[in-house]
């Protein structure tokens, strides 16, 4: 087991903040590492991830189960138990440094400056209290001087804002009286009740039907335009990312394998894993008779991560890197265009050729 103060290992991704003109990012994460000591060994759930999100913009974090995407977001919110986890790196929210902050201080930020929407609203809402009471409570925690009546009218207002009909009547209902889509709206109302500048949505639509998903995604976009908040959207659904994200971070085995603008990552993807994701997703367009091109194998276990590039056992092109994929963790480096980063040992021109010959026709360009 190595100490948190270890020097950077060879092959560690450099700290690369995303460059954007205009205002400073509201959230900036630099070289975030989250480790859990378990009976089976050390789990490096997040291993050197850096990103930044500005107000009014949406970052989509994409990955499969065990890729570290949810652990990253929980670290930003300071929700990991400090006794069980080791967090290093820097998380700056609105200019304040979060890592190392006392529990009490993080709690004051959480819910007010940053809020979270969970995947399953039924388990995130308390079944015993009315929906309105839970929203009003979230308001009063951060506005101790606000009276009961003020909190109630604020909560009713928020329920109306997220498109719940008859909000005053709905205030006094219990979560089980709401449909799935309405519950997710209530969760969003609760997250937004204190006008947070940063909103983290962890698979907010995965449990919902597509027509309701479309409503919720539209709602998030409308609210973002109104409140000008920064949003992190965690999802496994590339379709959702393509609709709402400005920037994309693709995670695999706790590391960022590719990141950049949504058009760069989805239209001109550089990493073989991103290619694999894009060509394995069935589309509504193109040749329905053609076979999908799956990624072979299974996502790795974080306890026993493959050496070198964690994707190499599943990569069709790992043999073309003179064995470096197996031994050396690839650094996250510029992929040509500004802001587009990729962690792959394949030379850029080889990647471009492989993409043109093998991938373009089967994946996004289909």
């Amino acid at each position, binding site marked *: 087991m190595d100490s948190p103060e270890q020097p950077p290992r060879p092959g560690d991704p450099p700290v690369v903040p995303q460059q954007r003109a205009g205002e400073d990012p509201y959230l900036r994460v630099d070289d975030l590492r989250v480790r859990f000591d378990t009976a089976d060994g050390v789990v490096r759930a997040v291993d050197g991830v850096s990103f930044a999100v500005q107000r009014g913009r949406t970052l989509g974090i994409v990955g*499969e*189960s065990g890729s570290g995407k949810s652990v990253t977001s929980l670290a930003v919110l300071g929700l990991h138990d400090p006794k069980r986890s080791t967090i290093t790196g820097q998380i700056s929210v609105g200019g304040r440094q979060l890592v190392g902050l006392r529990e009490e201080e993080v709690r004051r930020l959480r819910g007010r400056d940053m809020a979270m929407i969970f995947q399953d609203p039924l388990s995130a809402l308390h079944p015993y209290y009315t929906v309105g009471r839970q929203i009003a409570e979230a308001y009063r925690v951060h506005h101790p001087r606000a009276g009961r009546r003020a909190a109630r009218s604020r909560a009713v207002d928020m329920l109306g804002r997220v*498109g719940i*009909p008859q909000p005053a009547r709905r205030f006094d209902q219990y979560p089980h009286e709401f*449909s*799935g*889509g*309405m519950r997710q709206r209530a969760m969003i109302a609760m997250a937004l009740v204190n006008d947070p500048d940063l909103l983290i949505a962890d698979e907010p639509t995965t449990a919902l*039907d*597509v*027509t*309701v*998903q*479309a*409503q919720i*995604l*539209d*709602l998030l*976009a409308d609210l973002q335009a109104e409140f000008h908040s920064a949003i992190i959207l965690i999802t*496994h*659904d*590339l*379709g*959702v*990312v*393509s*609709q*709402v994200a400005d920037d994309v971070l693709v995670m695999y085995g706790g590391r960022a394998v590719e990141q950049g603008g*949504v*058009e760069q990552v*989805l*239209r001109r993807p550089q990493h073989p894993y991103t290619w*694999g*994701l*894009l060509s*394995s*997703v*069935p*589309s*509504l*367009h*193109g040749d*329905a008779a053609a*076979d*999908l*091109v*799956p*990624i*072979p194998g*299974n*996502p790795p276990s974080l306890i026993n991560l493959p050496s070198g590039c964690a994707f190499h056992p*599943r990569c069709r092109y790992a043999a073309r890197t003179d064995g470096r994929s197996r031994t050396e963790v690839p650094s996250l480096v510029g992929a040509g265009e500004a802001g587009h980063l990729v962690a792959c040992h394949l030379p850029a021109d080889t990647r471009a050729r492989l993409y043109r010959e093998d991938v373009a026709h089967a994946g*996004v360009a*289909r």
Partner: protein
Amino acid sequence: MTETRADEPLLRVRGLAKHFPVRTGFRSRGLVRAVDGLDFDVRPGESLGLVGESGCGKTTTGRMLVRLLEPTAGTIEFAGRDITHAGRRALRPLRQDLQIIFQDPYASLNPRHTVGRIVAMPLQVNGIDPPGGVKQRVQELLELVGLNPEHYNRYPHEFSGGQRQRVGIARALALRPKLIVADEPVSALDVSIQAQVVNLLRDLQRDLGLAFVFIAHDLAVVRHFCHRVAVMYLGRIVELGDRADIYERPQHPYTRALLSAIPDVTTLGPGGRIRLTGDVPTPLDPPSGCRFRTRCWKARDVCATEEPALVPRDGGRQATACHFPESGPVTAPAPAQRAVAADGDETVDPAATAGPDAQEVAR
């Protein structure tokens, strides 16, 4: 084993319904009409997709087809035999021809049994002794679904989600069925694994000539697997047709809304979505007439009074249950439709939003 001719449907479903009584204490609160009158056929070697949102009755339908649920009304004919109310004993030979794959590969395999025992179970229950022995047959099956036959003695927890689903598929194939009901077989799997399982099912269908009833909420997956598609809404089929018809020329407003709501990775940014308002109404008290009318932008008076029949248009094979079917490919909706949808209210004023084509049909 039953014999069928290629031109006859393998499965013939007429008027199939399942109503669940709802009680609080001893008082009846009515019936949930989970499935309320379905007609469809499945031909040998064909895969039919049942799609729709949660609560539309697709899973209930699948469970009735393999007789895990007793139908309230209607008939199910399999290979020319009425199996709607067949008893346990009469069903046993049919179980060989009719199998199911479940959604959750974690819950559908007994954790205390080895995969060898799990896959062998259907053979033992039916007293089948395959040539070469049970073990050899099981290992053939494991190999067929892309698992290592050496893993015969391993337990389900030693496998990943995708591999477990393969075990479930091997078990369904053990009796060489003619029809497999697959209930959301890939939706619990990671994205990169879904494609592996979809391709496996496609290969099996092609090589073994299997017929499938493929139940899914993911229309893109269905498009890659099914020859024909039935779109369900609140216990009814609203549209039924060939893959190309449903995806390229959908006629029912609900099908169009469903297709346009799917975020497609090939388009960037919020495209021209048809924004449906509100939620699916409760099946305890479905709307009168057309069940979709409360969310439909084309609904008019006749939709509330008269239930549209599922009938083919223009002599084609694509059947649509709608008084004002649409035509042409799915395009961005007219601005009027979106304006109504944008207020987020559950009520829709049909008169204000009925497009010019709707009026034309009405005339």
